[in-house]
């Protein structure tokens, strides 16, 4: 880098050792506390893989079956542990295959470092074999990226990469390393990065903003909280719970905020957004103070912005200044890490219980139960519903499992009905909506928290986008539980076609292979359920298995997910059918 001052280093200095760039990369990973990485080798990254071979007792490398799987596994690992996930790939197609996972990590603020090999420095720009401009390609979807062309840059850049990935609002960082930089030798010294001159990880907390927010909250008659992943990323679950309990404020979550507050907490009023719960969506347009905590007013949360909470004063607790007033105009913005701001505001908040207001949520819950939930969880029709599968998983997990979902109808059902007792338990692709996310993400999640049960819930469409990762499961023997809810459709698209395109089912019907045979081909125990009477026992058997297990459930083909806010409609126009 041209600005050596960019990294102010205050931490330990190790004595220099003369090693190759490739070995330096491994040492950097170890210095950062990494003991598990996901990746796929190839020509331009072979020197680093050669070092991995030597360090395999200290650093486990999981060979995924596709580089996209490596990123999603790293994401799953990061989401359940709060640590930085690491994925590695070669140049060219190896690097480009990482892009979907990187984009997913960027929009869902997941800390991840991706390391790619690159052609020799003297070949850059020559259209060499497997050369691609991955720094250029990844720029719009990374928090930071950098190309190393000289081995001596490795320690400083790697330290900076981990610091940037994990600090502030986390995100993905890509480091591209030319092959010459991997084979050159140099005097290696590692210093952890603790600041970067032009980057402020957390905004300074302004006590005046806290006071203004406290004043609004204390005066509110109908306050409502919408919380997002910021609570989880900031590890502010306890501070958050203390605040809502003291102030007695009904609290709803975005899908990325799910599990920050236990499902059964009395102030948990459910999910907001397109397929969220009836009460929190309706009452968003009736509350007098809307308190957004660590969330970014995604369009799937707000519906039509012109009719979103217009009656309410809006308070936004947020670490990223660029999110303030981006979509929803706030009256008070409380900038800072929510772990700090929620703790700081607590003494300023009056104890309260908004019983009558809370009752309004419960009244809507009753309506939603009768019109939607009852039919989802206790169906009277013959066909199996996705909801009853979730109900059985809840019965077996008692709310202690990590639930990893893919994208589509099953994802909305999983987020609506899965029960959680602890945080960092819901792993799903929220912002990008990446089909194929769940299977590899579940691998990373299980490796991140091996003591916990990890259940992947996937549709028959998304499952086939990364189905090859069954090979990774087989090879590593990682005991993930895989549930495919098979409706032989791309269900969410089909639902939209039914509701908004006069049932013209263009390319949404799937003729599927025998998933059981495929799972068995990978030596994974597998079972298919088609009848209600077999469901509970099958789920129990899966959960009891010590090994990986595949359960396919044939569900009703044309069920829809409700409630639903049609695209472009207001949150208060949420439909129950």
């Amino acid at each position, binding site marked *: 880098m041209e600005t050596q001052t960019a990294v102010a280093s205050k931490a330990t200095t190790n004595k220099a050792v003369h090693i190759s760039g490739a070995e330096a990369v491994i040492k950097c990973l170890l210095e950062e506390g990494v003991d598990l990485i996901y990746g796929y080798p190839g020509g331009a990254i072979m020197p680093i893989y050669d070092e991995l071979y030597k360090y395999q007792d200290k650093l486990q490398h999981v060979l995924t079956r596709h580089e996209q799987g490596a990123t999603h596994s790293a994401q799953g690992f990061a989401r359940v542990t709060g640590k930085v996930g690491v994925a590695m790939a070669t140049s060219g197609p190896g690097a480009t295959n990482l892009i979907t996972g990187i984009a997913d990590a960027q929009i869902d603020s997941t800390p991840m470092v991706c390391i790619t090999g690159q052609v020799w420095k003297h070949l850059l720009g020559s259209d060499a074999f497997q050369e691609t401009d991955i720094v250029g390609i990844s720029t719009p979807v990374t928090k*930071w990226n950098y190309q190393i062309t000289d081995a001596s840059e490795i320690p400083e850049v790697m330290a900076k990469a981990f610091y940037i990935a994990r600090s502030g609002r986390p995100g993905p960082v890509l480091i591209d390393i030319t092959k010459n930089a991997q084979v050159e030798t140099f005097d290696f010294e590692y210093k952890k990065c603790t600041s970067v001159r032009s980057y402020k990880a957390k905004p300074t907390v302004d006590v005046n903003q806290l006071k203004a927010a406290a004043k609004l909250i204390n005066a509110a008659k109908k306050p409502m909280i919408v919380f997002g992943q910021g609570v989880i990323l900031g590890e502010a679950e306890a501070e958050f719970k203390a605040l809502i309990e003291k102030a007695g404020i009904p609290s709803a979550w975005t899908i990325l905020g799910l599990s920050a507050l236990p499902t059964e907490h009395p102030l948990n009023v459910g999910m907001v957004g397109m397929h969220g719960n009836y009460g929190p969506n309706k009452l968003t347009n009736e509350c007098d103070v809307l308190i957004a905590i660590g969330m970014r007013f995604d369009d799937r949360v707000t519906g039509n912005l012109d009719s979103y909470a217009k009656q309410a004063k809006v308070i936004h607790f947020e670490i990223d200044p660029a999110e303030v007033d981006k979509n929803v105009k706030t009256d008070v913005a409380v900038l800072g890490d929510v772990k700090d701001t929620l703790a700081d505001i607590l003494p300023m908040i009056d104890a309260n219980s908004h019983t009558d207001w809370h009752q309004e949520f419960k009244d809507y819950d009753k309506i939603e139960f009768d019109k939607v939930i009852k039919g989802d969880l206790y169906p009277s029709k013959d066909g199996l519903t996705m909801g009853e599968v979730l109900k059985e998983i809840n019965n077996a997990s008692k709310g202690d499992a990590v639930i990893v979902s893919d994208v589509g109808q099953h994802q909305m059902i999983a987020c609506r009905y899965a029960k959680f007792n602890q945080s960092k338990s819901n792993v799903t692709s929220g912002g990008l909506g990446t089909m194929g996310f769940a299977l590899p993400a579940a691998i990373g999640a299980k490796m991140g928290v091996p003591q916990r049960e990890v259940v992947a819930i996937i549709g028959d469409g998304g499952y086939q986008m990364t189905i090859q990762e069954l090979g990774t499961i087989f090879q590593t023997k990682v005991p993930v539980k895989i549930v495919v809810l098979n409706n032989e459709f791309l269900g969410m698209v089909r639902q939209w076609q039914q509701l908004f395109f006069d049932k013209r089912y263009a390319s949404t019907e799937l003729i599927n292979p025998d998933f059981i045979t495929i799972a068995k081909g990978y030596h994974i125990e597998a079972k298919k359920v088609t009848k209600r009477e077999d469901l509970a026992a099958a789920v129990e058997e899966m959960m009891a298995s010590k090994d990986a297990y595949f359960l396919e459930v044939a569900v009703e083909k044309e069920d829809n997910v409700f409630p639903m806010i049609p695209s472009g409609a207001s949150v208060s126009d949420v439909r129950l059918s």
Partner: protein
Amino acid sequence: MENERTYTISVYTENNIGLLNRLSAIFLKRHINIESMTVSKSEIDDVHRFTFVVNISEAQARKIIGQIEKQIEVIRAFYHTDDEVIYQESALFKISTEHLYDEEIQDKLKFRRANIITITEHYFVIESSGSKSEIDKLYDRLKPYGLMQFVRSGRIAITRPKMAISELLQEFN
């Protein structure tokens, strides 16, 4: 769309390869056309300055600044209206020497405070600095003589309000 107007966006940055790509991607993602762009060193050692000119609404300008400042190597970004900046563009005109002693040309050059910076046997080169409209006017007046080449720089601008970058850098550390 809210009222669009011309904004000068000044960005103080570290000097790193790829930052231009990162900044231009922010405009691209929002389908905003960059009218002009200049990069140079700034008043502070090791700190570079990008100057973008864009036609957008103030709400867009505020959001763009937020996204630009979010980039790791950006120290600070500002947006200003034309009233808040003193700005110039520079232009070069290459014209055949047969017109050199044309009185009309001489008058036009005086009127625009333009200078002849090179004269050769075959051509001469005129330099002029000013606002976009001033340069446009000179362009229109010189065009009848047959412009062999014409080039105009992006806007460079000094702001009337203070941009306290040195203090900010202290705060970062």
